[in-house]
């Protein structure tokens, strides 16, 4: 397989290069002016508001269970009752992923979920993840399949690049979270990205770097390094740099330096991008600890970003340092010895729908026909075609039964009894998200007990 050449942002950013070589160009181009204004302290302070006395006293965060965050101030109906005791649920450990547990609701171990919370958790799953009783999920057949795939990688198979595809509400984000949790407990080094759209929606500063001909995102790189270090400190300490690295400010990090030390250097945003590059490259090359890169909202890696060059030309995702780093791993431009890149497409980001290029590359079902005259973006198409598609199917009856029980125990299910179960399952047509939604929004009263 011929390696894809590194797409260059040089042509698109020619004017940027000219501007960047000006003497006082240590700062890049302002993107999010609010961000920079806030950093400089120019934003006016909001007038101190009198604390309104309210009738409803917010209940204290649930002490039992591994959920119920103290920072969550929204009073929800489910919080009006005592938190449910989910002690009889299966704990989501690697040894619990056995065929007899398929369809059983399970709770995530508290420590693992707190570690994943460092990376951030998907907002659309916050209904379950932040509810009293703790984060839960149902063990599905696809969970076991993913665990088996990870075990295969760990035991010596080649590094894999997967993409989770399926209809809206099929459970891809939850599966990604389950896989990240499994990997973390199995000794993998995990980098979990719940919202990859934050990489390209121009919410973090960017500046053009002539040396790499890409747009660097220093704040983002620094943040990722901090998260990686905080979650995988032990594993990073045991890995060393395979060869010396030259950083942007001229410093050189010698070969054999502990990766944890290298990652700490990333706190300085000036060198963060180079440090992230070096750390990820080193992790991908070693085979002692397999690396899992779990990226949700992955269609943003293959679409146009919201950034603009000074000439107001659009910037593609592969022109930005952070997406490009992982696209290098996908395309094979950087060696990836042991580990996996697991991406998941998301239907919950309306700003970044699936482009015809992505649909064509991954053979996704589309409502608009793809003809030979449909314009496709070559680089994105080439990158996306290298991913191996994994289809996430609908609910089986046992899995639906587990989800029904989970919803009932957590207290947000209105459907009761066999009739409510079957009716919700038929109404959802096997779709996981619609099944859960139907349970909480059903208007049919339970039949009277005779």
């Amino acid at each position, binding site marked *: 397989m011929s390696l894809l050449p590194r797409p260059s942002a040089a042509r698109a950013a020619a004017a940027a290069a000219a501007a960047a070589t000006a003497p006082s160009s240590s700062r890049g181009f302002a993107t999010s002016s609010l961000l920079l204004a806030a950093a400089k302290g120019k934003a006016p302070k909001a007038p101190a508001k009198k604390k309104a006395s309210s009738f409803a006293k917010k209940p204290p965060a649930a002490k039992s269970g591994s959920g119920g965050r103290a920072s969550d101030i929204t009073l929800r109906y489910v919080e009006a009752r005592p938190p449910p005791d989910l002690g009889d649920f299966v704990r989501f450990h690697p040894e619990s992923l056995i065929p007899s547990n398929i369809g059983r609701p399970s709770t995530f171990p508290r420590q693992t979920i707190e570690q994943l919370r460092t990376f951030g958790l998907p907002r659309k799953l916050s209904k379950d993840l932040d509810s009293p009783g703790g984060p839960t999920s149902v063990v599905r057949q696809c969970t076991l399949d993913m665990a088996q795939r990870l075990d295969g990688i760990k035991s010596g198979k080649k590094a894999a690049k997967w993409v989770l595809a399926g209809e809206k509400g099929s459970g891809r984000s939850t599966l990604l979270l389950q896989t990240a949790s499994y990997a973390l407990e199995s000794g993998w080094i995990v980098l979990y990205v719940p919202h990859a759209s934050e990489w390209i929606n121009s919410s973090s500063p960017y500046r053009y770097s002539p040396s790499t001909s890409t747009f660097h995102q220093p704040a983002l790189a620094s943040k990722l390094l901090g998260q990686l270090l905080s979650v995988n400190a032990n594993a990073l300490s045991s890995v060393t740099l395979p060869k010396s690295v030259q950083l942007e400010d001229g410093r050189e990090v010698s070969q054999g330096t502990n990766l944890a030390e290298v990652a700490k250097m990333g706190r300085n945003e000036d060198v963060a991008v180079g440090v992230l590059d070096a750390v990820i490259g080193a992790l991908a090359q070693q085979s002692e600890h397999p690396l899992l890169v779990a990226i949700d909202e992955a269609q943003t890696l293959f679409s146009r970003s919201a950034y603009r060059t000074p000439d107001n030309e659009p910037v593609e995702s592969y022109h930005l340092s952070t997406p490009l780093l992982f696209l290098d791993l996908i395309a094979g431009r950087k060696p990836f010895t042991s580990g996996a890149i697991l991406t998941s497409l998301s239907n919950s980001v309306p700003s970044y729908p699936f482009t015809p290029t992505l649909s064509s590359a991954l053979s996704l079902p589309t409502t608009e026909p793809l003809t030979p005259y449909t314009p496709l973006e070559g680089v994105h198409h080439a990158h996306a075609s290298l991913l191996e598609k994994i289809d996430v199917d609908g609910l*089986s*009856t*046992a899995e639906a*039964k587990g989800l029904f029980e989970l919803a009932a125990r957590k207290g947000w299910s209105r459907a009761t009894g066999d*009739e409510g179960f*079957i*009716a919700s*399952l*038929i*109404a*959802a*047509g*096997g*779709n996981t998200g*619609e099944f859960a*939604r*139907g349970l909480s*929004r*059903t*208007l*049919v009263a339970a039949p009277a007990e005779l």
Partner: protein
Amino acid sequence: MSVASSSSLRALRLASAPRFARAASTYQPSSSSSVDAPPPRARPASPSFFTGKPTYHDSLASLQSSLKSAQTSLRAAHVYPLPSSLPMPQPPRASWVSSSALSTMLGTQLRTNTHREVVELLNELHAVRHLADLAGMADVASSVDSALERYERPEKVEAGKRSGEGSRVDELGRAYAMGRRKESSARVWMIANPKATGSLDVAETLGFASELPISEVLVNHLPLSAHFVRPCDRETVLRPLRITGLLGAYNIFALARGGGTTGQAGAVALAVARALAILREDVGDVLRSDGALMRDTRMVERKKTGKPKARKAYTWVKR
């Protein structure tokens, strides 16, 4: 004879008028009794002769009297009225002649309210007849029978309607039905779910929820959850199956057109109920009592002149 006859008036007039000596007058007045007396009239047979609708009143009076006599007989036998703790026995479905035929029979164009009153009286008689049958009082039952005979629709028409052309299960086992709601219309084909056979035995051997029979529902070639975004619309569509306890028993293919989401949901639901009534004879009563087989005739009311909408009025201004 309270009124003086014309002949006697004439006689009075002649007597008071001055007498002329008209010996040669040739005018001969006719005899008084043959012209001026009214023809003899027969006494009317019924007191309602002088009403505007004699046949109607007569028929109603005879029905009411037969009802009264039947009720009296049943009361004497301590059968009527039943104690309130006992459930009221439901008589078999009665079919009366059409409104137009009833109008002809009763000799007057029946308006809606009048027709309803007549039908209510007939239904009361029908219920009393059923009660008499159950009590074994054949004479009472036969007397009510004879009173109701002319008002009942002949049986063969009803049987013919049941096995009409469009209400059969075709050679592939599909039932086809149509439904409408507001501006929407839907066509539905229903077929038995091949996975839903003899599940009572299967559940024992394989354990709960091994593979429950799940209905597949396609509306305009999309799954139910994809076509109807609101969960309550999906529940509307599945309600006929739910109330008959047949969730999972049939697969549904529907084509809906026109109107909006809720209108299409109602149309599909009506069509599903009709198709279900074709497929199974035992569910018709349940569906009818739920109202699932009734076409909801509510339509958007037209806008009227002088008003911004059908009912909303412009702000009243005193002057």
